[in-house]
């Protein structure tokens, strides 16, 4: 090694270049060759050996790679490039503690080497070992007295106090934070504080100890002004509030608001401080003066009157003051005026802005239902658009839209009779078309149409109608309308989201997929928005078609999982103390995303269901999935709900919407669904492992079935618990409500019994139990039940098609898909069992019969067992064929026919109308045909599997 280091490193670097280059472009085979070539000349070149290990790792040759890397690590390398390659490999393999060891050795050989120490520090960061971080940071500071290192040690002390293992003990927390403060104090005294992040950290440490007074002194002092001129003013608010200094806060905010009159964060604090001052004055202070609320009102009024350009700020603040006074039973009306009149004034001033609806909605919950509906009526009147007139300009149209949206939020639409609602829908449709042709002609491709919101509202109304009548035709018409809107304003994502929802609701996966692709959901959106599509795909009716969507999602997650720790390392590198905790929490949220975990499990199930090779190929594919049945890898209590449910616009009646409740309920159910799916996967894997165990695990004789038995117990236990929990299906009151989870489906279909009986079958086959024949019969009966679900569902679907082809479609497709999922997994298992028994009956039959003489009944011979499995396969093949012939008869959904009137009111050219309805109908037809083809292909594979 000494010889190697003595040689010209530039030369080596040049020789190593081709290996790096090939790795970079993913040409791993070539990289391996290049590294081997280099090693023939320089067999001791460590970096080349490490790169060989990396190439092997990338090629999936894990054992060789491991050996190679291990050998390099044992040489305790100290050169940067070798260390980099090794730590890269360990990061890939999630062996983060090995990186720590690696650099510990390197540092030992080069004490005081700044670069190595810095790497060692970051390796501790990756495993969140704050204590070790602190020690290394101090060594670094000794080696190189840079502020960054000093503060690395400070923050490491802070984290020991607030995040480390001892942070739960209040006295320990106090000690650590006290120490951290003293460390910074000392630095300040020596005049060594240099950056704003250091100043931030000091303030943070003071606040963590509730030392608000000292924090205030520092924040308003000279040093902070110099180092941290950009300190957010909200820090001052926070401290003044903690210090109870309401008067100063009140005055500060008045100054700020004078300069910046549209800042909600300022108004909110200002109003709160006014209420706090009122509390103080009632205790006897400030006699003789006006009370603080009157002064607040005066101040707001002053801003309103002195502003040249009307800004929403002071008006909204006045409404907020009104609302808060009423909540405290104070005479709001007397001081400020009539609430309705103020809202109307606001509406008249700002109703032409699309945000006006959100603004007014803020204050609706504070008034009674009766008052809400009366107010909504007044606003409609104010908009100047009646049932017989049309908006005269864009501004009036926006006002009309706002008034309509508010009236829906106030519940005004809910009580209308059906014929009124239909008339209302027609009016909305007309308004859309009028607005489009009058004000939306020169639209840029990137703009939304000015009247699009009419159509969005119309779709919601049509859902209400469909739901009331349990019929799909209204909603189908709404879908056509939305597709029409989308042609006119191609970038309106609200339209895409609602269409996507309706397609799913009707089980039309092709349409849904089209909308999903149109939305161009990518990167982190795959996590936060995956629920609109990815989450709805499993058991939607297709298997292979959904796999690509999972892949795209999983690719994002695996990449960010790999990088997650490097983001945190970045905050250390830049000494961004204000972001470290945030980054750590973000990492947790991302890695524990329910979407991530659920998607991985569904993708694995999907792969097992759709495997189509011979037994050996399938088993190889299975082994590559490396499912460990004995190990529950899901951190159930950490699962995170990252869905952005607010991305979908809604104006549903506020009194009937409980977004938080809906989020919680749906999340809880999705977690339960994941429980079932993940357990099913593990249980199934334990069946396979029993017959095709990897061999690596040395299981003591007699305990081979322990995992299976344990999982089986959990399986029945889980279902028992779920039935007791009695989850209600998610409410489907409004169009944007989340679709029901699969929980009910999983409980209603014979999943529980099927896999429970299958467990017994697998056990009996293993032991050759005398009850085997009986168990075969049970399983055979289960197969018939599952097949019946498939066949009956399809015939129900065909029978109902004449009346309504869409309303129950999704549910029916789910049932068919679920039954085929069960039978497909079963087919795979039988093929594996058959294979094993064939092999062993050839080799072991004689030996076994000779062994067992002494006790009890003789186990059934392997030959007989093989015959029984044969019989089961024969039966399965037969039933799969029955499923196939049912699917062959499955009719495409009959679509609502009477659509000719749909477009007649619109100024559409007949050919546009024809292509529009034609396109939507074709999408449904394509979707059905594609599903049938995919399912039949699946069945064909399984029939072949069962025929062997």
């Amino acid at each position, binding site marked *: 090694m000494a010889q190697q280091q003595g040689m010209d490193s530039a030369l080596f670097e040049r020789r190593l270049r081709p290996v790096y280059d090939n790795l970079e472009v993913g040409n791993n085979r070539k990289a391996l060759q290049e590294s081997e070539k280099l090693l023939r000349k320089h067999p001791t070149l460590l970096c080349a050996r490490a790169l060989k290990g990396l190439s092997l790792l990338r090629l999936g040759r894990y054992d060789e790679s491991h050996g190679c890397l291990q050998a390099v690590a044992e040489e305790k390398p100290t050169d940067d490039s070798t260390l980099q390659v090794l730590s890269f490999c360990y990061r890939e393999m999630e062996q983060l503690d090995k990186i720590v060891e690696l650099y510990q050795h390197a540092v030992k050989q080069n004490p005081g080497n700044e670069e190595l120490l810095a790497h060692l520090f970051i390796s501790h960061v990756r495993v969140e070992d704050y204590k070790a971080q602190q020690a290394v940071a101090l060594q670094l500071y000794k080696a190189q007295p840079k502020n960054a290192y000093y503060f690395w040690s400070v923050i490491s002390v802070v984290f020991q106090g607030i995040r480390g293992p001892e942070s739960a003990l209040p006295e320990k927390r106090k000690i650590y934070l006290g120490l951290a403060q003293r460390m910074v104090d000392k630095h300040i005294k020596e005049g060594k504080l240099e950056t704003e992040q250091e100043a931030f950290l000091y303030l943070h440490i003071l606040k963590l100890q509730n030392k608000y007074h000292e924090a205030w002194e520092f924040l308003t002092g000279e040093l902070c002004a110099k180092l941290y001129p950009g300190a957010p003013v909200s820090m001052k608010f926070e401290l003044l509030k903690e210090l109870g200094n309401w008067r100063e806060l009140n005055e500060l905010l008045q100054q700020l608001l004078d300069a910046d009159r549209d800042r909600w964060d300022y108004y909110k604090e200002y109003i709160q401080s006014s209420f706090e001052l009122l509390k103080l004055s009632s205790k006897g202070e400030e006699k003789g003066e006006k009370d603080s609320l009157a002064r607040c009102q005066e101040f707001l009024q002053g801003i309103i009157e002195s502003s040249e350009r009307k800004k929403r700020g002071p008006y909204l603040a006045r409404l907020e003051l009104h609302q808060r006074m009423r909540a405290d039973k104070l005479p709001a009306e007397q001081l400020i005026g009539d609430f309705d009149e103020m809202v109307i004034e606001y509406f008249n001033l700002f109703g032409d802005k699309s945000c006006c609806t959100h603004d007014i909605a803020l204050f609706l919950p504070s008034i009674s239902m009766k008052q809400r509906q009366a107010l909504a009526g007044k606003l409609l009147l104010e908009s100047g658009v009646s049932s017989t007139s049309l908006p005269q300009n864009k501004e009036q149209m926006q006002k009309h839209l706002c008034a309509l949206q508010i009236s829906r939020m106030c519940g005004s639409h809910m009580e209308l009779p059906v014929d009124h609602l239909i008339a209302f829908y027609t009016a909305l449709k007309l308004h859309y078309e009028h607005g489009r042709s009058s004000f939306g002609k020169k639209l840029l491709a990137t703009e939304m149409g000015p009247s699009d919101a009419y159509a969005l509202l119309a779709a919601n109304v049509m859902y209400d109608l469909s739901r009331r009548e349990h019929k799909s035709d209204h909603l189908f018409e709404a879908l056509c309308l939305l597709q029409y809107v989308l042609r006119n304003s191609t970038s309106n994502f609200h339209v895409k989201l609602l269409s996507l929802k309706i397609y799913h609701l009707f089980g039309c996966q092709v349409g849904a997929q089209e909308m999903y692709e149109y939305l161009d959901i990518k*990167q982190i959106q795959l996590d936060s928005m995956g629920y609109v599509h990815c989450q709805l795909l499993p058991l939607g009716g297709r298997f292979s078609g959904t796999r690509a969507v999972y892949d795209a999602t999983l690719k994002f997650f695996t990449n960010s999982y790999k990088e997650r720790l490097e983001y945190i390392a970045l905050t250390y590198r830049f000494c961004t103390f204000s972001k470290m905790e945030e980054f750590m929490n973000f990492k947790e949220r991302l890695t524990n995303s329910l979407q991530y975990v659920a998607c991985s499990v569904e993708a694995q199930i999907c792969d097992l269901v759709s495997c189509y090779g011979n037994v050996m190929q399938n088993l190889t594919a299975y082994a590559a999935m490396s499912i460990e049945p004995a190990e529950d890898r899901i951190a159930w209590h950490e699962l995170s709900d990252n869905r952005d449910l607010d991305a979908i616009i809604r104006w549903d009646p506020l009194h009937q919407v409980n977004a938080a409740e809906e989020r919680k309920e749906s999340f809880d159910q999705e977690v339960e669904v994941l429980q079932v799916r993940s357990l099913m996967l593990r249980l199934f894997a334990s069946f396979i492992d029993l017959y095709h165990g990897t061999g690596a695990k040395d299981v003591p004789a007699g305990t081979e079935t322990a995992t299976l038995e344990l999982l089986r117990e959990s399986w029945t236990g889980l279902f028992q618990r779920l039935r007791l929990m009695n989850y209600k299906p998610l409410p489907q009151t409004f169009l944007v409500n989340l679709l029901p989870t699969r929980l009910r489906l999983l409980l209603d279909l014979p999943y529980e019994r099927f896999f429970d009986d299958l467990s017994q079958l697998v056990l009996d086959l293993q032991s050759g139990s005398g009850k085997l024949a009986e168990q075969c019969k049970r399983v055979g009966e289960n197969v018939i039940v599952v097949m019946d679900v498939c066949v009956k569902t399809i015939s129900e679907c065909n029978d109902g098609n004449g009346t309504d082809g869409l309303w129950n479609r999704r549910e029916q497709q789910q049932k068919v898909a679920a039954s085929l999922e069960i039978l497909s997994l079963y087919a795979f298992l039988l093929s594996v069992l058959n294979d094993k028994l064939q092999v062993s009956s050839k080799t072991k039959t004689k030996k076994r019969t000779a062994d067992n003489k002494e006790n009890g009944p003789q186990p059934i011979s392997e030959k007989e067992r093989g015959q029984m499995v044969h019989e089961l396969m024969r039966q399965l093949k037969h039933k799969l064929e029955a499923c196939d012939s049912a699917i062959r008869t499955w009719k495409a959904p009959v679509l609502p026919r009477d659509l000719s009137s749909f477009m007649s009111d619109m100024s559409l050219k007949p050919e546009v109308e024809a292509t529009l309805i034609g396109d939507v109908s074709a999408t449904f037809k394509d979707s059905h045909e594609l599903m049938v083809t995919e399912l039949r292909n699946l069945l064909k594979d399984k029939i072949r599997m069962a025929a062997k």
Partner: protein
Amino acid sequence: MTTLRPFTCDDLFKFNNVNFDPLTETYGLSFYTQYLAKWPEYFQLAESPSGQIMGYIMGKVEGHMDNWHGHVTALTVSPDYRRLGLAALLMSFLEDISEKKRAYFVDLFVRKSNQVAINMYKNLGYIIYRTILEYYSGDQDEDAYDMRKAMSRDVNKKSVIPYTQPVTMRELRRQMRHDHN
């Protein structure tokens, strides 16, 4: 009516009503995290009274000597909150920070075809400093305008004397490398 606050990692889960806009790019995580880690104060978000994200600005400060300047990397406002002066508010925030950091000027790149944005920046006091050829790659490459506004530290307004020759991407990259070293 706006709450201005620093953009946080959690906002990445909630910014869809802004990012579904066709002119707003959703970048890979490492892009956002790099900005958040390196220039946290340059990544600000505007929130509505109802808690919705109305828009955000993402920027940085870099350069040597009299090239020390603030840069706007992304500025976006949700379709529901346009024409309320939000972009101007976010820009003035970024200029404010750049003033505090003693930057000489603030600059940004904009598509030559994005007339709405160009006009807005002009109204905010930006001038077209130069043209960058084929800055935006895509089905059809597009030129960018490099727009600038001088900050108070640049007393003689040297930074905003327009450059008459268009600049190629190659030259731009060379300059940027020079800046970083």
